[in-house]
């Protein structure tokens, strides 16, 4: 073997670990794509409803939104996290219907 190739290990342990690590990484990439495909990262709308004898209230909105995208308001990427998005319908001080929801904001 010539001098320039002397430091190159032939099929060492590093190569095997490297290939395994790359495969794990690619598999996780594929999982992220699949998760995005089924709407895990937003912004698919879901409908929630609150029904009482006198009132029926429905809320059609995404549960997860991504920063920078318009959804009623522009989601501020600095407000990342999960927050309450509960909708209430009151008749003065009497609660008629309530839809408990949370909104997850991704960066």
């Amino acid at each position, binding site marked *: 073997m010539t001098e320039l190739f002397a430091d190159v290990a032939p099929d060492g342990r590093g190569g095997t670990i490297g290939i395994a690590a790359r495969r794990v990484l690619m598999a996780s990439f594929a999982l992220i794509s699949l998760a995005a495909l089924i709407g895990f990262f937003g912004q698919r709308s879901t409908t929630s409803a609150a029904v009482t004898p006198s009132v029926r209230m429905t809320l059609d909105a995404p549960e997860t939104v991504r920063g920078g995208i318009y959804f009623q308001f522009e989601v501020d990427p600095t407000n990342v996290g999960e927050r309450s998005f509960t909708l209430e319908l009151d008749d003065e001080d009497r609660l008629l219907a309530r839809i408990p929801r949370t909104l997850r904001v991704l*960066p």
Partner: protein
Amino acid sequence: MDLVLRTGFAFLLILVITRAVGRRELSSMEPVDLILLVVIGDLVQQGVTQSDYSLTGATIVLVTMAVLVVATAWLSFRFARLRPVLEGEPTLLISDGEILTRNLRRERMTVDEVRAEARQQSIGSLRDIKYAVLETNGKISFITAS
């Protein structure tokens, strides 16, 4: 969901366009090609991410592109019949010292371009070349008579 689908469509479109444009044009970067490349990148980005400025959106697009690149490479490696479609095939430009003008015309290449490539590989004359092959990456391989 739409981000992944748009990324997949953009990837397929890029694949088809690069195959249609031809490897020679893509390997020899003139200033106008470089600018066009940047413009194409910008147009693809607008179509794929649209108004999505989120880090999550960028991650989804990058990760999906990586998966598609590896999937294409795997398909090409695994199925020999797909290889010409995905990567193209080498084209013989000079065979046994004879210039194949039909193949040159098919690749929209002139003899002057072959000469220039030969000069860059320290070959003094076309007469010294026994075989010249336009590889799938757009480079030309030369085998000299000596």
